[in-house]
């Protein structure tokens, strides 16, 4: 690491709209934010990568479906395979499921409405680079804002990820109809995490909460190892 700040790459797709918020939050944890343009197949030496929320490619076809073909996704795949910490938030979670880095899919919310609300979620596992500074079983209040946050996977997959302790966040009050109240999952290697809540939006006490920093700070510890 050379003693410098941890470099956290933030991918910017056309239509990403939480990229600037992620850049800000990364600054707040005293890491170095690195802008990663979708058209460039280059992670610029990032120690960790955030795939931010928004409406990549206008959510055309379905959320995340087009983003998975962006140039930046090839080095991201290598990074994932080599165990690099990746966090997909909201649309980023959708992108990571479309790219098969994560199991399952995100469907329309069951009440067919967009939902923007602060919700309580339970941290189900601290054994990911993005939750290592949380306690398993602790509850966090985090904002969600999505139209397609209804987590779906076939029964075998659900059984498997539950058995392997790969549910990262679980809703205390389910806002969207997600299977098993799942708000976030990780891959088999546990380095790739996708969550619907937006930690970067609760990154400052003046916003009423900086709970999200718990999640983002976790990766500092992990990336330095």
């Amino acid at each position, binding site marked *: 690491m050379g003693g410098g700040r941890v470099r956290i790459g933030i991918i910017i797709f056309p*239509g990403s709209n939480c990229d600037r918020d992620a850049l800000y939050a990364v600054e707040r944890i005293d890491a170095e934010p690195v802008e990663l343009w979708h058209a460039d197949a280059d992670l610029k030496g990032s120690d960790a990568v955030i795939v931010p929320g928004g*409406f990549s490619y*206008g959510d055309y076809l379905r959320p995340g479906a087009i983003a998975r073909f962006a140039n930046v996704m090839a080095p991201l795949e290598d990074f994932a395979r080599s165990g690099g910490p990746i966090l997909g938030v909201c649309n980023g979670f959708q992108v990571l499921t479309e790219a098969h880095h994560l199991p399952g899919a995100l469907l329309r919310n069951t009440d067919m409405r967009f939902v923007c609300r602060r919700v309580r979620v339970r941290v189900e596992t601290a054994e990911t680079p993005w939750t290592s500074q949380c306690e398993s079983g602790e509850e966090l209040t985090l904002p969600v804002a999505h139209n397609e946050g209804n987590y779906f996977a076939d029964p075998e997959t659900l059984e498997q990820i539950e058995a392997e302790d790969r549910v990262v966040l679980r809703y205390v009050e389910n806002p969207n109809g997600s299977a098993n109240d799942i708000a976030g999952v990780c891959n088999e290697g546990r380095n790739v995490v996708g969550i619907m809540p937006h930690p970067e939006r609760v990154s400052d006490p003046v916003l009423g909460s900086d709970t999200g920093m718990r999640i983002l700070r976790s990766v500092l510890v992990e990336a330095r190892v």
Partner: protein
Amino acid sequence: MSLQETYTALGLSDFEYDRILELLGRAPNYLELSLFSVMWSEHCGYKNSRPLLRRFPNSGPRVLQGPGENAGVVEVGEGWALAFKVESHNHPSAVEPYEGAATGVGGIIRDILAMGARPVALLDSLRFGPLDEEQNRYLFREVVRGIGGYGNAVGVPTVGGEVEFASSYSGNPLVNAMCIGLMRTEDLVRSRATGEGNLVVLLGSKTGRDGIHGATFASDKLSEESESKRSNVQVGDPFAEKMLIECCLTLLEEDLLVSLQDLGAAGITSSASEMAAKGGVGIEIETDRVPLRESGMEPYEVVISESQERMLAVVEPDKAKGVLDAAERYGLVSAVVGRVAGHSELRVQSGGETVGSIPAEHLADAPVYERDLVRPSYLDEVQEFDLTDIPQPEDYNETLLRMLAHPNLCSRRTIFEQYDHQVGADTVVLPGADAAVMRIKGTKLGYAMTTDGRGRHCFLDPRGGGGATVAEAYRNLSCLGAKPVALTNCLNFGSPEKQEGYYQLAECIEGMAEASEALGTPVVSGNVSLYNETEAGAVYPTPVVGMVGILEDVSRHASPGFKRGGDVVVVLGGAPADRSSLAGSDYLYIVHGEVAGRPPRPNLAAEKETSDLVRDMIQSGLVDTAHDLSGGGKAVALAEMALAGGIGFEYEDYEIARIINTKSTVKILFGEQGARFLVAVPAERWDDLQNALGGMPYNRVGSTGGDRFKIGDLVHLKLSELRKVYERDLFGAPGGAEVIH
């Protein structure tokens, strides 16, 4: 079609056609006539409202840009400025609610972008007919979906707004969108075209046939025929808009533009002629160079198309490549479509020939109509309504529940949860309070914003209502702790060609102007939407005020919800409580189905004094709980504070005695008047509060705590009972029918 039929179909009168002949000294061709038609529509030309609008004060120490540009701009401090404006999209939303509302949001965002500001917040002021009619439910549902569908995707948080239901809006909903943009003061750009030989670049989406004659459509009353004008409504693409925002901000940052203008009503025509007229130059547009979405478009269609997500920029020739390259990086279509010329005409060229040429100043100079003010007779009738006949409620529990369940007073949660109100990570006070508060990153500064309209009040007393609308916005910002600095407005009225409509317009403007002067909140931008009429008549005269305020320390703000048990709750300001009135009140409307009486005229000096005091108490850290005492009166306002905080409330015993021993119990609990607030402080700070109040009249009404809402023997309800009716789903089945007249 005869000549007369042609220009009449384009919305021009005989008088206006003669004026065109006089100005040009020749007969216009069809393209030229189309240009006049759109530029002289009320929407673009303000021909009925311009003399009245001069009444508004529009300068002040913080004003960097007043009316006349795409948006007003005020200085915040530390080099920051805010651009803001509100605009209507009423007619498009009436015939195609999803796209009408969505493109309304898109349009106002581009107005802010054109000033060089990053759009950072949206608010929406909405009015519909009662929800027991299927058509109104449909319009309401789709407008909210359209606002969310566009705003959420484009990444600008929708942080506030208002919704009201009344039968006068059936078939003619009001959909007003406000946008606020944040910028450095030195980045302010204007839309003036300069520099002969500079190039005109069109950026954004391709041009299609959508929205041809949309501005003319918006300046006509709604009828069954309007359905057939559905194709006049444009279709929005928030993804393209998001790219356009990022692209334009990059171009401005790299200093590649001379000037910038959005394309809204009347498309290229409006933008180019305004840019030319302001700069005293000419602009030549070659329609062959405009990237088109469909084939076979006539030159006149190209120049008046209202295709969305487009901007027009003036660029120095050696910077054109940089502009086009940046557009490509953002996946946008762009093209050099014209040039700035030494003459002062808007000249349209096609196939190497000039197909139309008109002095830009003539297009920007619509004829002005001034009319006589005649007081409509309905005013005497409604104002003389005898309020003494209104019976007292038999059951105050039931009455309060009925009030809180009404769509005009119940929680807006099921609306604002469909809007992303937190993207940007700047929203300090979330929707549901009297106003929204945002911070400016890297500073202690914050700003607050609100939209307010009082249609029923303006209908009953246009001048008083106009003033009360401004005062309400002033109070809403003040009770969050913000210092109001300026306002924008959207004037939604019926036909100015009718005496009643013109009188309402003129009188509301007069009342608003008086209040703006007295409160020190100049009008820096605005929009006029006239002809809001259906066969059933005009809407209530509904000027909507969008006001912006500043917080020197954003962490020092208040919100309405009770914070602690044991707080003392005080009504602050106003004369003795029994001066409040049921005239024009929510109580009279909701419980008795009456829109009548003459509401108290706003006392502007008292409005300023009480608001300024509440703000001082918040900024000094004494008060963190404050609420404007407005619609629904004291009982409703107290219940709102209890519900927002999840903490109960109980009236003081001596207050109960006072209320019970008078005939005006209902007036005290549900009556309305301006210049009043509710504040709560911990009991141990009661002495500090009294000291801070000075000579301000106040009334200690009760204390917080528990899980009940109690007013002596009159009201005794669990908070959960209140919450059940208050938190109703506004989009649910019309089960609310039992509480709606």
